[in-house]
């Protein structure tokens, strides 16, 4: 801080308008390469989304002519209609599976996280690390025994074969994040509630849960996107008639009405339809997500 050059000190406090504009222009000129680089990288990153949506509108011949432009096959949106009919049952089924799994994760996760954050009991440290340690167990390690276990329970081809393991698998991360969030709530709020005779369950539902809503939404979103696109485990435990959307697009069955040349267009229409719910959800909760991620909490 001692190295302030005399030149720096001589900068007049009030500048004329011309100087301000000139400064801003110079500032922008310095930033132009930054904007340019960001726009180029951004276009490359988002190109698959554009390509997907546009290819669903073309037919096979139009795609071969030029994969980059926007062309419309007649009748408009025909492949989107075909893909919708192909996917609508799977969309409903996957939605039910994802919603019940995420509800289970958030509800049980909040209950346990509240217990660890607010209650003193024997074995709390040990039990917390028993849950935290699960974060170190990769999914590939448990994949095979989990499949055999679900099969042994007679749950094959049943949505519960996904819902129950999903709820279990989401606990560790949710509890870890929720616990630190609940610990951040001012003690006075709980103290006031306790003086009024509130039980733990009441404090959980009336104080902790409303104040943790942003982090609950962030955790829910992360789980929803993971489950929505999950392919490997569902394709092991569910048959084709019980497909999730990821299975339906991963093992695409060509409908008789679609000739070979246009199959790829219907596939891309299906990819777009599968992506739309995630994009919509994301745009709705964008604010929570960006602020949750930008809070600087993620580091070691």
């Amino acid at each position, binding site marked *: *801080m001692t190295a302030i050059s005399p030149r720096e000190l001589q900068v007049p406090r009030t500048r004329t308008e011309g100087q301000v504009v000139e400064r801003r222009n110079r500032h922008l000129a310095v930033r132009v390469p930054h904007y340019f680089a960001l726009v180029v*990288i*951004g276009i490359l990153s988002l190109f698959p989304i554009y390509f997907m949506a546009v290819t669903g509108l073309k037919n096979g011949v139009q795609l071969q002519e030029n994969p980059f432009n926007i062309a419309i096959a007649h009748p408009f949106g025909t492949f989107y209609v075909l893909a919708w009919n192909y996917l609508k049952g799977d969309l409903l089924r996957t939605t039910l599976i994802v919603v019940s799994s995420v509800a289970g994760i958030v509800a049980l996760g909040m209950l346990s996280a509240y217990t660890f954050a607010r209650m003193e009991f*024997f074995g709390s440290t040990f039990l917390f690390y028993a849950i935290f340690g699960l974060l170190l*167990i990769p999914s*590939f390690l*448990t994949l095979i025994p989990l499949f*055999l276990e679900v099969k042994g329970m007679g749950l094959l081809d049943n949505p519960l074969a996904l819902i129950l393991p999903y709820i279990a698998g989401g606990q560790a991360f949710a509890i870890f994040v929720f616990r630190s969030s609940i610990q951040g709530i001012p003690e006075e709020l709980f103290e006031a509630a306790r003086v009024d005779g509130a039980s733990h369950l009441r404090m959980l539902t009336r104080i902790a849960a409303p104040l943790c809503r942003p982090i609950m939404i962030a955790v829910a979103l992360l789980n929803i996107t993971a489950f929505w696109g999950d392919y490997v485990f569902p394709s092991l435990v569910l048959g084709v008639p019980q497909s999730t959307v990821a299975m339906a697009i991963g093992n695409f069955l060509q409908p008789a009405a679609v000739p070979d040349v246009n199959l*790829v267009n219907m596939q891309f229409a299906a990819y777009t339809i599968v992506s739309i719910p995630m994009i919509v959800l994301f745009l709705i909760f964008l604010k929570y997500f960006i602020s949750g991620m930008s809070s600087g909490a993620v580091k070691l």
Partner: protein
Amino acid sequence: MVREGVAGRDVSTPRSSRVTQRKIARTLKAWAFLLPTFIFIGFFCYWPAARALEGAFTTWDGVSAPIWTGLKNFEQLFHDSLFLGAFEHLFWWTVIGIPAGMGASLLVALLIYRLGNPRAEYWFRVAFSLTLCLPGIVGILTWQNFYEIGGVLDVILKDVGLGSFATAWLANPHTALGALIFLGFPWVGAFAMLVFYAGLQAIPHEILDAAKVDGVSSWRRVFHIELPLIRGQLKVILVLSIIGISQNLLVPLLLTQGGPNNTTWTPVLYMYENAFEYAQMGYALAIAFILFVLSLAFALLTMRFLRSDNERRKRVA
């Protein structure tokens, strides 16, 4: 079971025992709250994990009872050229993929951070975050199409006059593994980018102002101020990337299944095929065991290495 109300009945009960009883009651209540979570993770996390570790030492077809065979699976694996090749592929994937992914995410985070215009910064973050909501399988299948003969990649090569290089990228043994690693170009991870950006934002203004006054160049600012100060974020993303890349089953499973000419096997894919194509559960679990131990050790080593480096710096300063 001792209940709180019972303790109050006897006036002569020592105070300490009443406190103990209250503690027991509190503990039981807490355990009751935790019970649902533990039922779930007991059934669907601990039990399968224990079975996995135990199964690695057995011969098991998944139907009849497993037969304990000790280290036989592991001995066999060390002579299995497909398995050893799979680790070589994973090595290249890690060595190329992680620096590329982290570098791209860091570059974008730095560029956005340097814009100096909060609104522009916000909208660029939104734009790059959009890739996060594209389901992984959709991105992979889209890239599969890019790699096809006459696909987007070939069209671009032809447009820049390199059309002779066009090939069936995923079916050519010389290009298949490279194509899988290249998938997802320009590899900007939205999650990593947001974490890095958050770290950069947290750098105190005093430090940056001091640097500006001292006339520190842009490059020096990156390497001597910004990167050291987001060390924590770099570390967490590095560890997550190491763990994530060893688990990447979907890309080779959907696109190449180990082919062509066995050039794209990865350990986790080889595990999957052994279990569900050849019904060799014990052998597959031995692969899972080795991969688990190695990736865990590697992640822990990374954390350890980076920490000690950090401490050394602090001492010098």
